[in-house]
């Protein structure tokens, strides 16, 4: 932990993400207005003391919508990565531990999934389901486990024949124990790094989907759909397009900084 804080990249990322997480968690208490409250007397107001980020075409307060949007974006990012990482750990562990034909099949599956253009795959699945926040999380999760799988497999392959693992096996440890007590804890660093980086790309994908109108549906606010709503008024209401984009940028930047910083700080090879 001390190593992480000593790394300037990781520290900057950690601070950005903590701040955004805090804002998202406290949204119901710190948002000055109801994010969905329509106010016909306050339509398309520029940023001011009353409305820090202005209001939209329905008179809704953008700052409040941004705060609630942060909850959605972060929730989707974290749950999607949770799904992807769980799948990746299970498949990667099985492939790396049992090797042989199991490994071959798993790795071919990864190759096949990687050869289908991801965004097409996500959109196609959504075309057959209905867009909702839960479907988005599941779809992003189910289409982004390949990296973690390869990573876990590679770690397992390299750890599998180390002395401590062989010793434990000789002493009669079962597969389950070997995988969860010995191999997995020793592969955690790259898994954590790739999960943190994964949240960054999941946030980007979610905002892209919402921007296209196939993600989080109105009236629920997400940064992507605030941007879509604002797109039509870009000529005379710049604040509707500027703030959500900046929020996405800063959040993704925070996760990337933290991920790369963690990699530097925790990887013994780069020291």
């Amino acid at each position: 932990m001390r190593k992480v804080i000593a790394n300037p990249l990781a520290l900057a990322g950690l601070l950005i993400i903590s701040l955004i997480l805090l804002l998202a968690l406290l949204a119901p208490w710190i948002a000055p207005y109801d994010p969905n409250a329509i106010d016909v007397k306050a339509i398309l107001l520029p940023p001011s003391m009353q409305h820090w980020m202005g209001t939209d075409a329905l008179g809704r307060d953008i700052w409040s919508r941004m705060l609630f949007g942060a909850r959605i974006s972060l929730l989707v990012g974290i749950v999607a990565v949770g799904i992807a990482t769980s799948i990746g750990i299970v498949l990667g562990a099985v492939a790396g531990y049992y090797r042989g034909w199991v490994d071959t099949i798993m790795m071919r599956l990864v190759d096949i999934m990687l050869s289908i253009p991801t965004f097409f795959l996500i959109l196609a699945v959504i075309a057959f389901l209905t867009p909702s926040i839960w479907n988005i999380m599941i779809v992003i999760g189910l289409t982004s486990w390949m990296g973690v799988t390869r990573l876990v497999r590679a770690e397992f392959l390299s750890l599998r024949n180390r002395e401590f693992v062989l010793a434990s096996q000789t002493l009669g440890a079962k597969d389950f124990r070997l995988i969860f007590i010995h191999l997995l804890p020793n592969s955690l660093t790259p898994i954590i790094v790739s999960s943190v980086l994964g949240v960054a790309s999941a946030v980007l994908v979610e905002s892209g989907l919402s921007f296209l109108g196939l993600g989080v549906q109105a009236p629920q606010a997400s940064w992507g759909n605030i941007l879509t709503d604002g797109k039509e008024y870009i000529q005379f209401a710049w604040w509707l397009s500027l703030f959500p984009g900046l929020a996405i940028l800063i959040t993704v930047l925070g996760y990337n900084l933290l991920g790369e910083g963690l990699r530097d700080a925790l990887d013994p090879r780069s020291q």
Partner: protein
Amino acid sequence: MLKYLLKRLFWMIPMLIGISLISFFIMHLAPGDITTTEAGFNPKASEESRQKLRELYNLDKPVIVQYGLWLERMSKLDFGNSFASHQRPVFWQTTDENNNTKLGMIQEALPITLLINVLSMGLIILIALPLGIISALTQNRLPDRSITLFVFIGFAIPGFWLALMLMYWTGVAHHWLPISGLHSMGADKLSGFAQGLDTLKHLILPVFISAITGLAGISLFVRNGMLEVLHQDFITTAKAKGLPEGTIIFRHALRNALLPLITIFGLSIPGLIGGSVIAESIFAIPGMGKLFFDAVLMRDFPVIMGILTIGSALTLVGNLLADLSYAWADPRVRKGVMQ
């Protein structure tokens, strides 16, 4: 080399079967069957069009037979006709009994997307190479730090947002660049050269947008590759021999650092094709991405399945080409392959 090629080609068969399985699986994801989803989404979907869907995908037959028929159609690249766009063939042109030729939708859209992607790859190389090299040569000093900052922002910037901002700034506010479509109004009356210039102007923003996200990754990659090579023994030897700095960097280090780029480009193909959805729908460019997005909105299943399959097949071909060029460029791999 020939044996390697044959082996790789052979490997594509199980991959394609896997892709067919996944696309078939997606088709059956919908609760109930896809005819009801379509009806649910589009209340105007008639019993007739539902019947067409059932016929096209043989939904009345057992699942295994359905899959067999789907595989057969895929192998013939026959994805049927679009539901939404006047029965146009999805993939390639067809001629009916009256000698009327209907162009395929993918046939028309694919060259546009390929052109944009080739241009943006060119732009990526043009910008990312110098950035990566400068970054590596000034490691941890100011130029490297500022390029790294740029790279991180490039990774984080949402493409659609940047597109929107640039579109507003260059197109709406200043009228420097056209912001939609591929041709200006009345461009068909211009000379061939002027028409080409007009299209090129329309392509500037979309190409720039699709290049910007790839740019960050590639320049970081060149930087790290250069740093790794610069620490190897043969570079020290070259320096000890008293070779000029330029020769060492460009002839010895760069050539080795660039090799893996071939693979990276191969791997980035699915991302580029998929990424075309956002850029093309924002700028109204009639390429694969926009075609796919419109098909998703209209639940035009034959088009969705066709593009999904063709996009994946393209990725496979791209990866194959990348591996072959790698083998061709790197004598170590080439020799290893021949043995």
